[in-house]
């Protein structure tokens, strides 16, 4: 069996920060630091192979065992509920899941609430918990546009600084939960690459702790 540890990293700024954390934890891979269009990189001396995947696909790669471990946002884990272990909060990519609407919005409880979101399962679960009848409008991007054009009453979406909401005349009405990036593991890999994964957890925990102390 392949003894390399396969790590799925989310493409983009978050992924770069995650790789920096892995590098500080002792898992540098010089190849990845040179700009290129390649998607896989390995450091055979350390027995680690990284690959970039779409952030929302990280959990799928890990669940299906193509990657042994990976880093995925808590939003993705709560939306898709992949069958993986959630081993560590690495504290990066902090933001929140929130209900937002135009500043003038006043909720009419006699009507079904129209909710636009990329996260239908999270939205359904939240509104079920407060007993509110809703219509879900599943969108794949530019969620802020939905209430502006009357497609929905509110949106359920990720809010980082709130700047995009403000620029579009929206504001947060309710914060559902905080989000950050999590180290996840395939359940079988956790068993057959136990020591390697334990070493990564320990290295990343120390790097996260150091970063928290420096903040």
């Amino acid at each position, binding site marked *: *069996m392949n003894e390399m540890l396969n790590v799925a990293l989310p493409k983009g700024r978050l992924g770069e920060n995650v790789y920096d954390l892995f590098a500080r934890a002792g898992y540098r891979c010089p190849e990845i630091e040179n700009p290129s269009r390649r998607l896989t990189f390995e450091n055979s001396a350390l027995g680690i192979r990284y690959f970039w995947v779409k952030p929302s696909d990280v959990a799928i790669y890990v669940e299906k065992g193509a990657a042994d471990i990976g880093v995925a946002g808590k939003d993705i884990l709560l939306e898709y509920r992949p069958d993986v*272990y959630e*081993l560590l909060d690495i504290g990066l990519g902090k933001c929140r899941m929130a209900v937002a609407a135009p500043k003038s919005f006043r909720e009419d409880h006699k009507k079904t609430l129209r909710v636009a979101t990329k996260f239908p399962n999270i939205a359904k679960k939240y509104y079920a918990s407060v007993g509110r009848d809703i219509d879900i409008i599943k969108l794949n991007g530019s969620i802020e546009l939905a209430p502006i054009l009357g497609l929905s009453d509110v949106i359920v979406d990720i809010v980082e600084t709130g700047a995009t909401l403000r620029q579009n005349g929206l504001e947060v009405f309710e914060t559902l939960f905080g989000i950050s990036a999590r180290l996840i593991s395939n*359940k079988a890999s956790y068993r057959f690459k136990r020591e390697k994964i334990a070493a990564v957890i320990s290295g990343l925990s120390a790097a996260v702790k150091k970063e928290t102390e420096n903040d």
Partner: protein
Amino acid sequence: MYCSQEELNSRLRRVFEGAGYRRYVMSKFEEYDLYSDNRDFLASEKVLTFTDLDGRLMALKPDVTLSIVKNTRESGGIEKVYYHENVYRASGIGFKEISQAGLECIGEVDEYSVCEVLSLAAQSLMTIGESCELDISHLGLLTELIDGAGIGESAKKEVIRLMGEKNLGGLAEFLADEGAKSPLCDDIIALAKFDCDASEAPIALRKILGGKVSEESLALFCDTCEFLSEEFPSKVRVDFSTVGDLNYYSGIIFKGYVDGIPASVLSGGQYNGLMKKMKRKSRAIGFALYLDLLEPLFESSDGFDADILLIYDRSAAPKDIYSAYKNLSADGKSVLVLPDRPKALRFREVYILSRGGVRHE
């Protein structure tokens, strides 16, 4: 590595029959009510249904255990059966026919029966692949600890879900949010972290659980761990992230993994909760093996669809074609006989039968 699924099936059958388990053969259908009453026990809530000729709503079996429990009479003894059946479950965008094997031990299940079923689970895994692991935990001990910490029913489910994710940070946060201040919360977190070889488990478990849960249950579980570690050294671990639905499972619960397969290939436990729900007085333990997951382990074909392709001239007499086929297949080679060369198939050798006789291409 096995050359085929059939070979593995036959070896598993020998494991089950070797312990005296009888094969249980059942119908593909069952009344839908059985599954609608026990939805939580099923891997998926979606069931493939149809209306029978007499108007009854029927379902293609999504699960075998429920049918066996329903159809097993309570005789006062112990019923030991195994099965190899197809079940029908929602998977991805549609329903899928899934091959499943497993066994059930129902009735006056005693300590020996539990050890026997666990040892058959370990043997089944080792039959699939030498690099394997059986993980066990005990839901009864876990729930006793959670109840002792004063955690309510809905919060208990969340605690168990977080333990199943090995989400230690999330678990600590949840317990703090719930205002659970009992010192037993530290023990719950210690159990969530608990993951060690079965040989080390008894001492470590007694340290965490001693005096906090039923001494009898703890002692029985520790005895089981000792038995398994002696019989299957370094193959069995005690891992409390192995969890299941509390309405059905009540005692030992286990999952099996084989190197090369990304998910658990075996799942089982003591389902006394299900027996109670189905108004049975007896106890039960069993497991299922998900044979469809094992496909990557089987030897892939060598890239050829047959050893030999024999292409014949349409004007050739059938007895000449058959005679050429018999000669070519005499040493056990597979021979596909066709009048034209098929597209997309590969052969080691090609022979052409024409009026001049058989020639190698």
